[in-house]
């Protein structure tokens, strides 16, 4: 039980995440991917006669159950397995972030950026709303996210997923090194 309550090292977590791929394939011939759930939500709630959302989303409802499971898992891990401990990050990263204006290092997310109070500041709006929009728009445009492309796509040796994953990383590096320092100052 003690082990469960400690943060899990990469060599435990990574293989467990990898196992989700064969689990979904063998349980019901489903391919791992999460961003598609956002499309199904659009198709279910506001198809608005857009051809991209005109399909029978109910055939894909397994994906929504999968997403709901992730919410529940997040709840269980933080409530019962002490999941929301301070994250033991590289001191260099912490020093740099402090320099760039991040103050709170007490949980999984910096609460001085991600909170309802911050939502109505320019910085909070950019991190919470604009960032989210880019994640939703970008993943669908790319045809998948970290799960669908980086893990499912690459492990099934599909080169377009390799290209997409490289682009995820390039976008992330450009943002982190060249743009984020300014956004943190907003």
């Amino acid at each position: 039980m003690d082990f469960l309550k400690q943060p899990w090292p990469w060599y435990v977590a990574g293989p467990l995440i990898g196992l989700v791929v064969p689990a979904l394939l063998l349980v019901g011939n489903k391919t791992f991917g999460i961003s598609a759930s956002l499309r199904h939500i659009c198709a279910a709630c506001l198809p608005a006669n857009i051809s991209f959302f005109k399909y029978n989303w109910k055939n894909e409802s397994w994906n929504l159950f999968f997403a709901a499971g992730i919410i529940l898992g997040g709840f269980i891990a933080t409530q019962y397995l002490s999941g929301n401990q301070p994250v033991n990050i590289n001191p260099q990263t912490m020093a740099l972030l402090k320099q760039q204006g991040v103050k709170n290092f007490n949980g999984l997310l910096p609460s001085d950026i991600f909170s309802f109070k911050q939502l109505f500041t320019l910085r909070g709006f950019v991190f919470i709303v604009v960032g989210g929009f880019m994640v939703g728009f970008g993943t669908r445009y790319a045809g998948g996210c970290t799960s669908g492309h980086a893990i499912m796509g690459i492990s099934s040796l599909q080169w377009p997923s390799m290209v997409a994953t490289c682009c995820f990383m390039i976008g992330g590096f450009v943002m982190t090194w060249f743009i984020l320092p300014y956004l943190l100052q907003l």
Partner: protein
Amino acid sequence: MKNIKYLFIGLLFGIVLVKSQVVSWFRIQEMFRLQAFHMYGIIGSAIIVALLFILLIKRFNIKTLSGEQVIIPTKKFNWGNVYGGLIFGLGWAITGACPGPLFAQIGGGFLVIGVTLLSAIAGTWVYGLLRDKLPH
């Protein structure tokens, strides 16, 4: 309810995402600043394990629980993989979360991330609206 099994797999996945701190904004910062191996180790070992199991499934022609042939759809390249990939990457470094962790964070009590999720759904919707006009 045939879909409950996916809820269960998602639940285990969600626990791993939180316990390995993949859902932490700080871990994503570390990754993009190349100051920790943690995230690279997780994604890399996940790919290797998934790859090995897919090879096993193919090599021994392992069937699904209901006896079907396992089918992995082929992804066809389009330029959206590049343009969309870059946009997602830029956003990922801001939110510190890709779609899976967004769900896990909400479950973990970070309710404001519900706004991020709604915004991501809006982004998906706008992509659907503009799809025919975007380069692919």
